[in-house]
């Protein structure tokens, strides 16, 4: 009886693993099949010479280059806003908070995680309206506002990722450090935090992925269909997910639809390469911390 149950569980876990591989594989093949053929110079820059576009000498009207750059800036700003408070809050929850603080702050983080992105977008919109009436009469929806709201949206995955990574570290590390005379602060910053790096990176990846795909927030806080390269923090911008959304809703010809798939492929590659960078960065840091050559 026990044997059969074990076999069933084994099949289930193998099956689930294969299902994930299958889903990712199908998605990739589909995107490559539809977006692959149009993936090239023309998709990104349309008829503008690439060098001129890259240097910002000539505007790109129909290509996705401005959207690629828009998404890139949006993600960088979002991370700049979210990384410190997110990781900091996770460290506080795991290493410094009293049980009562843990409960209350944990609840707040869970609540924040449960807010749908469209609500976050509305919040940003209301915020700028309020600011216009009070201190910023010329304020308008923009890159800065979008990234601020996106940061709020992805904060919980950073907090939870950091907290979980720290709390699941083996107990002996902090006990050993205490017995050797490390202060609590030294234990946290010199041992626990670096040891949890892999897990924190996991939270960062989730946050980045969420920020890269979100359309609802930016739609209400500053993204437009055609803006060219973002000219500053307070300007309107283009972004890949919105571009894809817009194409899917408005395409007139088969070719336009294919260009949409091309944009989707570009988005995937962009977030993939960002993750790869983060992974390499973390590995480098970890190797230095461990002192292992």
């Amino acid at each position, binding site marked *: 009886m026990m044997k059969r149950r074990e076999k069933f569980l084994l099949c289930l876990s193998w099956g689930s693993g294969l299902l994930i591989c299958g889903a990712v594989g199908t998605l990739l093949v589909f995107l490559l099949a539809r977006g692959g053929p149009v993936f090239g110079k023309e998709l990104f820059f349309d008829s503008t010479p690439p060098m001129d576009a890259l240097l910002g000498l000539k505007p790109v009207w129909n290509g996705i280059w401005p959207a690629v750059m828009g998404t890139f800036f949006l993600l960088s700003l979002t991370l700049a806003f979210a990384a410190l408070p997110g990781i900091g809050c996770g460290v506080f929850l795991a290493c410094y908070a009293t049980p009562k603080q843990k409960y209350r702050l944990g609840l707040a983080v869970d609540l924040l995680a449960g807010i749908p992105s469209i609500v976050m977008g509305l919040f940003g919109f209301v915020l700028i309206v309020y600011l216009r009436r009070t201190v910023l009469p010329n304020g308008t929806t923009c890159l800065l506002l979008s990234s601020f709201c996106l940061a709020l949206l992805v904060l919980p995955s950073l907090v939870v990722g950091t907290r979980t990574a720290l709390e699941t570290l083996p107990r002996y590390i902090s006990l050993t450090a205490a017995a050797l005379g490390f202060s609590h602060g030294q234990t946290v910053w*010199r041992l626990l935090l670096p040891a949890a790096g892999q897990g924190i990176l996991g939270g960062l990846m989730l946050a980045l992925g969420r920020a890269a795909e979100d359309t609802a927030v930016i739609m209400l806080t500053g993204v437009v269909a055609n803006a060219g390269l973002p000219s500053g923090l307070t300007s309107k911008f283009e972004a890949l997910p919105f571009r894809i959304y817009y194409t899917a809703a408005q395409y007139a010809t088969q070719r336009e639809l294919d260009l949409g798939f091309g944009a989707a492929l570009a988005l995937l590659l962009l977030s993939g390469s960002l993750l790869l960078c983060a992974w390499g960065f973390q590995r480098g840091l970890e190797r230095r911390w461990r002192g292992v050559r």
Partner: protein
Amino acid sequence: MTAPSIADREFCAAIRGLSVRFGDRQALKGVDIDFPAKRISVLLGRSGSGKTTLLRSFNRLNECFEGYEGTGTVKLGGIAGAPDSLEEVNALPLSRLRRLVGMVFQTPNPLPLSIRKNLLLPLTLVAGLETDEAEEAMKRSLTAVGLWKEVADRLDRPAFSLSGGQRQRLCLARVLALEPEILLLDEPTASLDRLAAAVVEDLILSLKGRYSIVMVSHSLAQAGRLGDFLAVLTDGRVEETMAASALPKGAEAEKFLEKLL
């Protein structure tokens, strides 16, 4: 309460009325005991008799465990400079106390770092040494535990690549590098095979006279081999203390222990 029957009356620790509880569990119930300086004292007793808790009261490590409550005093001798001074553990800064009272655990616990960083990190952070001084201290203490030749060419390998016995000697070296006065050993050979255990035992014997050593042991044979002073704990109380020389030999010994525990 019998005082240790050792000619040298200098104490490394004087413990009075020590009671410790963790939540509902009373681990120590009013312990009064003195430990001789620069000797090996061995704590014997069944699992759960409070040996490890008594050991951890030296470096206040009990406070790292959930539900800790403690009363009584633990005074340590010769750690505040003057050899005959007795200092309350609560009166010392925690990091200084734990540097002066080094501890080796039952399961070897290298940090998840390289062999080199396992020694250098405490030396630079806790002892505040510069890197080159710390490298010197590392070499000295690795040599003292007989590990230098084995690891000299692989200092940048993970500490977990070492064998169990080597890891335990690394942990001992890490503690010795901080130049402690008192060494706490919590069943240091329990997780090792016989050969590795013998190496560590020899090492402990070689440290005798230079450090005050308090160790927990499960084995009367080991206590006989290493100890100068024995204390038997039962159910959170010190049942008996004696000089190791008063210990019966051979088959008598087992019966004796049977009776005590």
